[in-house]
């Protein structure tokens, strides 16, 4: 795991649960909740079920998933049925593509104009062949937002959840701390930050496994971003935005972030050490 990814210290007597989904490990830590302590495990499990639900919704590798079908049918007239959450996600992605000048792009090829969404019929399709959707840069964030919303609806007032530690959401403050404390302590790339009712997203080109190139693709050129590119870490209200903006900044470090998005510096020395390792 790249050293620029956040490390989480879990304090005291809390409920911790984990599940594998979306090719990573999701973890939920519940520190305080209106429900009896005996119910916290069930709450954590119901929340982790959503990670699997989002995996089924967004995987492009498993035949039958909505994204797989949309990609498979690209260029044809056949529209794919999608649910309300998918409609919301596609709408959010369109907004983020525009806001990041295309540095974040689920089509990875500057082809968002090929995506046709019918919110009344609740269908989606790609109008041109050769275009495909890839939610690798946003899927975990979308799942984390949904999970956090569910935790809050179940009376959780203190929680930390992450999806592979490249995306973290904090609810309230860590257990044992005053209610007005400034949240959970998270360490990202040697930098300690506090999160309270917000999300941290980290994108680290050095974490790629291809020799000399990262797993990130620049939508403008279609080429992989160099592993020498600096990592990006941002704090936003929503994990989807943090996910998308951190990816965008890793692709285009010169991008200006808008108000409401807080970029934090991750130590270059650690990312350099990762490259040299």
């Amino acid at each position, binding site marked *: 795991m790249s050293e620029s990814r956040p490390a989480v210290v879990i304090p005291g007597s809390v409920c911790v649960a984990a599940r594998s989904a979306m090719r990573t490990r999701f973890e939920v830590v519940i520190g305080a909740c209106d*429900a009896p302590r*005996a*119910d916290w*495990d*069930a*709450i954590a*499990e*119901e929340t982790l*079920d959503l990670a699997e*639900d989002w995996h*089924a*919704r967004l995987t492009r590798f*498993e*035949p*039958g998933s*909505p994204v797989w079908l949309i990609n498979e049918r690209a260029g044809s007239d056949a529209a794919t*049925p*999608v*649910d*309300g*959450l998918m409609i*919301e996600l596609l709408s959010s992605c369109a907004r983020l593509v525009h806001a990041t000048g295309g540095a974040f792009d689920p089509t990875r090829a500057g082809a968002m104009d090929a995506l046709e969404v019918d919110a009344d019929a*609740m269908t989606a399709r790609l109008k041109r062949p050769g275009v495909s959707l890839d939610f690798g840069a946003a899927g975990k964030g979308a799942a984390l937002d949904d999970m956090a919303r*569910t935790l809050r*609806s*179940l009376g959780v007032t203190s929680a930390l959840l992450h999806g592979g530690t490249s995306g973290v959401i904090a609810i309230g403050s860590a257990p044992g701390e005053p209610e007005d404390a400034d949240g959970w302590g998270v360490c990202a790339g040697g930098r300690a930050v506090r999160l309270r009712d917000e999300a941290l997203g980290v994108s680290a080109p050095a974490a790629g496994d291809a020799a000399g190139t990262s797993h990130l693709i620049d939508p403008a050129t279609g080429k992989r971003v160099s592993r020498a590119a600096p990592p990006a870490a941002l704090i936003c209200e929503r994990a989807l935005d943090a996910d998308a903006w951190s990816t965008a900044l890793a692709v285009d470090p010169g991008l200006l972030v808008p108000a409401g998005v807080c970029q934090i510096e991750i130590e270059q020395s650690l990312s350099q050490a990762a490259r040299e390792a």
Partner: protein
Amino acid sequence: MHEPTEFDRRSFMAQAGAGLAAVTLLPSLGLARQPSAGADIRVGVVGAGTHGRDVLREIGRMEGARVVAVCEPDERRLRSALRRGRGAEGFASIEDLLAADLIDAAVIATPTYKHLDTARPFLERGMHAYLETPLAHTPADTIELARLARGDRGVVAGGLQTRSNPVYQLARGFARSDSVRDVVSMRAQHHRKTTWRSAGSRGPGGDANWKLDPARSIGLAGEWGTQQFDLFHWYTDSLPTHVRGHGSIRMHQDGREMHDTIACTLEFPGGADMQYSATIANSYEGRYEVLYGTNAAIKLAWSHGWMFKEADAPTQGWEVYANRQQFHNDEGITLIAGATQLAEQGKLKDGVGLPYNSLYYNLADWLGAIESATEPASGVEAAARATLVGIAAHRAITTGERVEIDTTGV
């Protein structure tokens, strides 16, 4: 019986590795039944817990049916379900749902102990209904549901997911042929690490943690085992006569009475027993079933299936083209549904594993049966018998007694 010569032994050892030969199956298999795009069957889902949400997702993938209503008294669950739907309307009570006259068919996705009370108003109106298996938590409720379904004028399915699973349908042909030949024994397991607690609604009538309540739950054998027991009923055309078993709490020392780990043996006529284990304390190897025969063993894991031939089993011509997978010392034939069509498209290897899960195929089959006014693959009577077996298994485990299985009431 043929005694292999030294030459035979050398040649088959060279070909078969550790002693089992792989065979490819390339039968022709029709596509799983599902509603046509123009069917437009309007479905109401009653119950918006985990299973109700799964139903919403799977029907949401189909083109010939749509969920137009969700019925759930818990406001939080209803809100969450509607966000996951495709424009469905929400209702807090069955009375309100029925009064709206919006639906053609209903999926009953409430906890098991509520199935009878939930399904009754729909069945008494002669509506199409999908009943989850296990059908109920008591023999009396199970038999009553079967009776109501018999009187119903709609298409009523019993939620036995193996019966509409294309790989399982394919494998059944081989299980009942000389490919497997005589059944030696059967085994199944369902392992999944979880608490089995549920963040359900609390207060009077609430269903929070119902699976742990001895008065409302039929335990792992009933809730999980019923589906898997039915596979063997279906494959062997027989029902077990007795069951014995035991259980314990291996991990969840939280004051619960319900066992978190169980094992039982179902005794089938003719002496071929079925061994079953289930636990919520470990996830290794998940859920699968194995049928051992004198010519081959078949292993089924819901989206995948394999046949492991014995070295001395007859060889057939198509075996040369088999798609195979290696499991340590064993090599299995992959059972591919729709293999002929996939081979014609050059996508045979893509066909390993089903694209959809068993619930999808089961719901699609029921909806297809509604459209064609025919019987679903998963009938209520078979589901009722399977439920009675599951209830008996749970009783054997909790009492430590050898329990006689009686399905004559169905």
